[in-house]
């Protein structure tokens, strides 16, 4: 559907994002886990395993201390029994650690993938339940990224960054405990050496996150200009603006290069400074350790064990800034998916318990219906009209007159702000979706096709139809001769968005699909773009057969359609201003008569 220069209305997703902007990172994680409970399956055991898997790294420095103090340090008379015992213990602990780490990782991968797939599918379904998709084509790209890259970000976070944080923090805690057990004085020396880095970490993380924001922005801008020589290839050649285009592309590429280099500079500096802190800590340990040892408070093994323990700090600190940035991105992604899921569906299915519609061909009634998008002006104002069963109605009006809104309310793609829309005497907001769709069908302007075979595309109309039923419908709409021209019949692949077929043929498929669905009330949005006349003729005839015996409301872009209808409704600025047959309205001399006059002026040129 073409988009109009709509008023700046409040998008429900934007509104939800504004509400959730106050939530902190932890609250987002909590809400995210609540929405995909499978992530938490056995999370206690997984975390326990994660804690156990930090032990392996810390046992090595202990063995070093034991070995040195058991005699290795004195260069002679070693107490081998004790060393062998500790090596044995360490061996066992390293093995246990490896097994725990394996089990922990597998559990984490399985649980997070299951939970996030759940969330992905939920979010996908929710997008279909939100009416904005049918209102706002620009949002589609954004919505796709919520069920794809945003979820991927969260998955990376849970499986890599998140676990890295847990293991690193665990390792640092265990290392600190072991250090404190050996010597609280040396522990303080080590911690003091890392203190400046720890304090500046927040600053680094903020700078890094800004730097990566710039990188992302420049990537977006670069992708847009790189598309120009490709998507706009013919425009660029026709207007001979190659040099200008190349300048724009180069500029986009250079801006991205600069942003990446700036970010890389920060990464390199933070990474390097952790190493310097490590060196400082080692020097500090040797000075303080020797001083304390000489005073008799410390063994030689302990001092050397400390050097090994310091190593356990350097790695986590080196990756900490990067991890913090990634965590921020992941939480932002998680927030976006949660916002989508938390946006309430504006049109709610009353469910199958609702009373069914009466059988037979139905009519419709608008009872003082007014519609406005949230925060926007009235798009449709106090429309009061009744459509009798089997009546053929054309809706006419300029762009923005409200005729499309009228059609959307009729098919319950949206609900009115005031007033009711009823079908066969029942308020359609009390009719279950299944029941409603059995009776009413909207055929959009462009016959949207899926990248599959013709058969699969037709089955969207009626999932359980067999080939005989499909061919019967082809015959029923008088399209057998066209069908015979298809190289592979029902197995013909239509290509992405149906691109292997012509625009006119896509419309034919859409009509066939609608005929299979067999509704008794059709709402049609007439195609505006011209297609090849022969196909157009075919489509018009097929449509004629499709409409036979059904109630129909057509958003007419051609006056010939209005002329052939039982009744014409003319909309202007959100109001139903004229209502009558073609002949009556031409005589009335109003809006319709004016539109008709310009049309007649055009067709007179034939003679």
């Amino acid at each position, binding site marked *: 559907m*073409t*988009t109009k220069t709509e008023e700046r209305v409040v998008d429900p997703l934007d509104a939800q994002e504004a509400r959730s902007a106050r939530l902190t990172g932890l609250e987002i994680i909590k809400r995210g886990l609540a929405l995909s409970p499978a992530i938490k399956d056995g999370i206690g055991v997984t975390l326990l395993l994660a804690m156990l*898997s930090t032990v392996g790294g810390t046992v090595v420095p202990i*063995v*070093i201390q034991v070995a040195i103090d058991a005699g*290795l340090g004195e*260069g002679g008379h070693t107490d081998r029994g004790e*060393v062998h015992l500790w090596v044995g213990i*360490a061996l066992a602990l*390293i093995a246990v650690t490896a097994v725990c780490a394996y089990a922990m990782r*597998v559990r984490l*991968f399985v649980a997070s*993938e299951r939970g996030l*797939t759940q969330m992905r599918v939920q979010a*996908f379904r929710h997008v*279909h339940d939100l009416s904005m998709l049918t209102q706002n*084509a620009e949002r*589609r790209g954004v919505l796709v990224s919520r069920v794809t890259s945003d979820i991927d970000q969260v*998955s990376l976070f849970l499986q890599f960054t998140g676990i890295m944080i847990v293991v690193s923090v665990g390792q640092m805690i265990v290392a600190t405990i072991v250090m404190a057990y050996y010597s609280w004085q040396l522990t303080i020396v080590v911690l003091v050496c890392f203190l400046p880095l720890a304090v500046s970490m927040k600053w680094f993380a903020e700078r890094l996150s800004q730097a990566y924001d710039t990188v992302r922005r420049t990537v977006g801008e*670069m992708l*847009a200009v*790189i*598309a*120009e020589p*490709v998507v*706009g*290839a*013919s425009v660029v*050649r*026709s207007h001979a603006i190659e040099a200008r*285009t190349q300048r724009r592309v180069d500029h986009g590429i250079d801006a991205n290069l600069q942003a990446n280099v700036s970010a*890389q500079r920060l990464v390199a500096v933070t990474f*390097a400074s952790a*190493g*310097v802190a490590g*060196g400082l800590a*080692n020097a500090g340990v*040797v000075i303080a350790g020797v001083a304390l040892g000489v005073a008799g408070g410390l063994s030689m093994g302990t001092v*050397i064990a400390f050097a*090994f323990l310091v*190593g356990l700090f350097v790695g986590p600190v080196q990756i900490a800034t990067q991890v913090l940035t990634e965590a921020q991105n992941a939480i932002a992604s998680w927030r976006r998916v949660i916002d989508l899921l938390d946006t309430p569906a504006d049109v709610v299915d009353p469910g199958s318990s609702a009373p069914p519609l009466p059988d037979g061909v139905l009519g419709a009634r608008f009872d003082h219906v007014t519609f406005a998008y949230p925060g926007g002006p009235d798009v449709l104002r106090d429309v009061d009209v009744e459509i009798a069963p089997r009546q053929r109605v054309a809706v006419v009006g*300029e762009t923005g007159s409200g005729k499309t809104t009228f059609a959307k309310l009729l098919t319950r*793609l949206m609900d009115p702000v005031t007033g009711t829309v009823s079908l066969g005497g029942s308020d359609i907001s009390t009719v279950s979706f299944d029941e409603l769709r059995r009776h009413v*069908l909207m055929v*959009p302007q462009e016959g949207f096709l899926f990248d599959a075979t013709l058969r699969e595309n037709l089955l969207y109309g009626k999932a359980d139809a067999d080939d005989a039923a499909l061919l019967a419908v082809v015959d029923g709409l008088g399209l057998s001769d066209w069908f015979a021209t298809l190289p592979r019949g029902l197995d013909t692949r239509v290509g992405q968005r149906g691109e292997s077929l012509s625009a006119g043929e896509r419309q034919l498929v859409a009509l066939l699909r609608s005929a299979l*669905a067999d509704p008794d009330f059709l709402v049609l949005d007439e195609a505006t773009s*011209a297609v*090849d*006349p*022969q196909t*157009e*003729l075919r489509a*018009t*005839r097929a449509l004629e057969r499709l409409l036979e015996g059904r109630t129909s409301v057509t958003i007419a872009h051609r006056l010939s359609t209005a*002329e*052939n209808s039982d009744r014409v409704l003319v909309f202007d600025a959100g109001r139903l201003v004229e209502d009558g047959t073609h002949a009556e309205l031409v005589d009335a001399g109003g809006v319709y008569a004016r539109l008709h006059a310009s*049309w007649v002026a*055009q067709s007179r*040129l034939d*003679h």
Partner: protein
Amino acid sequence: MSDSPSATTDNLSASTDQVMGRGFRLLGRGMSEQRFLFTISVVGSVVYGAMTVADAWVLGWATDHVIRPSFEKGEMVKGALAVSVLLFMTVAILRALGVIARRLIGGIVYYRLVADYRRRVTRRYLALPMSWHHKHPTGQLLSNANADVEAAWAVFMPLPMAIGVIAMLVAAVVAMLLADVVLTVVGLVVFPALFGINVFYQRWLSPKVSHAQSLRGDVSAVAHESFDGALVIKSLGREADETARFARHAEALRDANIAVGRIRSIFDPLLEALPNLAVLAVILIGIDRVASGAAAPGDVVQVAYLFTVVAFPVRAIGWVLGELPRSVVGWDRVRTVLDATGEMPYGSRELDGAGPARLRLEDVRFEYEAGTEVLSGVDLDLEPGRVVAVVGATGAGKSTLTSLLTRLVDPVSGRVLVDEVDVRDLTHGSLAEHVAVVPQSTFLFDDSVRENVTLGADVPDDGVWAALRAVQADGFVSALPRGLDTQLGERGTTLSGGQRQRLALARALVRRPRLLVMDDATSAVDPEVEQRILAALAEHTADEDGPSVLVVAYRKATIALADEVVFLDDGRIADRGTHAELIGRSADYRLLVDAYDQAREAGDLA
């Protein structure tokens, strides 16, 4: 190097050695192109590797010369202590400088290679003729300039570190040999094992990662398609089936991700445990060596410490080898663009006429593929100041005809003449200055309204507004939040199809062309507005201050404004004359333009 355009991961695994060979050649190319910076990053990385080993050596030295003597004597060995502190700090600072050189300069090498090849690829896009563009899907070309360029050079991110690691391993073995020959044996067992496991790990993992990546693409494609078709899905009540379809793809991706996860779960803990086991082995052997007096305690400490610091960097070699096949695939795709040949040669003549131009086609033939002629001997004469409509069924060759006029394609034989000059003899600039084509679909640049109309030409705002007024676009443009400065395109304001077409028309008019070619360029504009635009245009042309106009049309109203109609049928001019004449004498023409009316009559009969 092969130039196969579709090197997939499947045929890659068939010839792994060949891929590695080509991968190493690719490394050579990148290294030589960024020779200077790459050398600095490698030097930095070698310094980093050497200092990592030196760090362990300093600890060993401090053990033997500071810690042990102090403990034995019961007093601090002050001189040696000062030296060891100095050594620790010097090593740490040198290592930090090495890290910065490696990470920063190495990063710059990668980013420069990527930026450089993006420039080269986009330059090819601008130079290659439209016939080449027609043969390549848009999505593929965009990915060649973006993802494929990145993939081709991605291996340069871990490369300096991997080279530094090789230096580090050599230094480590030397340091061990100097410390104790027997302890070196542990290193000679453990280092190759670490290396081998990493290589095996990456080889096992990377096809599984590629598989997951392609499934990720499927998930995205299904979401795109499904959201695009939302209206159809909703009105047919197919949400549940669509969700099931999406869930099938999402679950396939989930299983592939879990399969990747299982491999990672085995190797990551194994690679962490291995150096720890090595340390235990060093201690077990070390106590005997020290007891027998063959080694000093400091030697044991140093070798043990080496394993803890070397273990992680060794992974970089695995990363390089794991990345290499992906880089080769990316490079092959980039190469297909860089190696593509064909330029559109332009002439050197300039047109100097003023007022509406004359257009003549002489026996023009054109085919996209050999043997299927789209235009078969078209002769056409458009006198200056005339409006000529081209009418024909789909596939009759109308759009091709318009493409010839600005040389988006050239005829196979015959000539296209503007003011009696063959368009192939004109400079590109002169042709674009005199002839403007407005295509069926409008491309908007990610730029302001003003820039989208002027396309960089030096036109004052008055001129821009005049062009917008001529195409009835001044109303909606002035209603935009920032008028001419409003950003359009993907990240800016979105316009309707009719509004876009009107901007494209303004874009053509603002350049004051002498021949205006419209290829169904008003199809999305409201008929009433279209009438006003065309009437104003025809009036200007009739007054000799507008261009000659060639218009491809379906609507009768459009056709009616033309002085003459050319009826194109199956690549030939079947007839020409006024609309009334053609209606009178050509049954095919009548059938074509009356199709709507006929449909209406058929409806009345039904």
